[in-house]
């Protein structure tokens, strides 16, 4: 009766998409795949990205399932807004994440990164409706150095 099973793409429970299915993997580009592979619970960039989005109810799924949540599925992403106003919502969201990482996680910037650069880089990911939370975590990992990181 396998034919009666719905395609994994249409399962609402994102936890069932972890690990990613062959079909999803084919549809995912290499950069996204790398981001998905780097999503792990020993990487503070990943756990803090998920944690702060979860705290603010931007998403309401566990760490595993959060990996494949799209930006358009986050609570801030209102597609009825003009792109200019949505852009400011993304900028606010990025500025809040920046403050969270630096004050609540005691993260410091990697060399060459500053507040505006990090906020701009996160905003660019947040504005892309098809980007995944794991891809946001990759940008976070590039910009911030979290104390107590273990791999």
């Amino acid at each position: 009766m396998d034919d009666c099973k719905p395609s994994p793409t249409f399962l609402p429970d994102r936890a069932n998409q972890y690990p990613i299915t062959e079909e999803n993997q084919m549809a995912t580009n290499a950069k996204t795949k790398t981001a998905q592979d780097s999503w792990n619970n020993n990487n503070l960039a990943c756990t803090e990205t998920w944690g702060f989005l979860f705290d603010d109810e931007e998403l309401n799924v566990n760490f595993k399932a959060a990996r494949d949540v799209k930006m358009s599925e986050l609570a801030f992403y209102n597609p009825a807004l003009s792109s200019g106003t949505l852009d400011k919502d993304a900028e606010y969201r990025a500025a809040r994440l920046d403050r969270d990482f630096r004050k609540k996680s005691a993260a410091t910037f990697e060399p060459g990164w500053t507040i505006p650069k990090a906020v701009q880089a996160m905003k660019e990911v947040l504005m892309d409706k098809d980007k995944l939370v794991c891809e946001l975590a990759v940008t976070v990992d590039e910009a911030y150095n979290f104390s107590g990181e273990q791999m």
Partner: protein
Amino acid sequence: MKNKITVLVLALSFLWPSHRAVAQTNATAAANSGPSGDDIRQLVAEAAALVDAAKTNLPDLLNEGLKRLTVTNSPLAWLRALNVRFKAFEPSAPGKNAGLGLDYAYDKAVTDAQIFGNDNPAFLSFSVKAKGTIAFDPNNNPADFLESGFQLHLWQYFGQTQQEKPGADGLTRSARTHRLLAKPPFDAMTGDQIRASKEWREYHQKAIELEPSDFFYDLAGNVALESNQTFSKRQWAYGLEFHPRFRAWNPDSAWSKFNFFDWPFALTRMIPGQETHFKPRGWFLPSLMGGIDLVDPVGNADRFGVDPDKSAYARVKAEIGFRSKVMEFEDGSTVWFNSGYRYFQELSASPAIKRAGLDQYNYFAASLELPHNVSITFSAGKLPFDLRNQRVWGLGYKFNF
């Protein structure tokens, strides 16, 4: 030998800037006075050290260069700021087919400078912007309004300023809690089960005490070319926009309780039974924009047909947007309500412009996002350059290719 060493040292000094000055000084000294045996041995030793250092640091240098490529004004970074999404439009008239088109948005900040503020610094940023909707059939574009221009904007975020300190394990309270909750058994729980855990509730209560609310603003000065997609109508707009964002994180605060925008959805969220009491969210407060423009109508035949006066006029504009969770099911699937309203009003418009209805524009869009990629959308009103009011209902289904 001397020449070889000089070339080697100069080549390495080029590769490794921090040693450049020292290496060049030594090489120049050797060339001027004639090297002794000790000088040559010292130069060889320095060169060997430089080779070792270069070998060790080159990957880091390359990685650093690569990182800069991705965060500064390289062509890649400029392209990364472009967001394009294809969309389908329903037929604009009987007998016409549904149309295809795309939304695009481009926003690239090219300079940033801290202007004032220590705990909550304010930054000035210069951005190049473009946004709009393009239909492959220009006559079937329900939002035929493109905006391209430059923006100088000042933004500031007011949030938690207290620095949390790492404990003996090197982790702050948030890092420790998030890591714990990212591991078994929590990584197999639903979001609501995690929220109900003692670990998250204790952590979150403390977090709310430290930061019960936050505030963000962006004040932007714009120069923009507004047009329809064929540029047959176009005008320049110079103006100011103010975007405030306030969010209350304490669910017991007045901002949360009296967020009447969220009241209907606080009720609908109780239907699946996961929320047992009426709980409007202070973090689902609306997004706002207010602004004023000076508009120079350089090419607007419809307007000039009504009023031949080609002088610039002032226009106020506003936008409010609201998104809230309608309900959430146990499997994590969510129903979202999205809405946005845009308003443009010309100040001191001539009677002819008022009679033609060209002084005021309203546009409302709303959608209900259902599980399984189904959405119901509605839009009504007109944007600048639209000559008639339109009401458009849509039923959408998203495919992931």
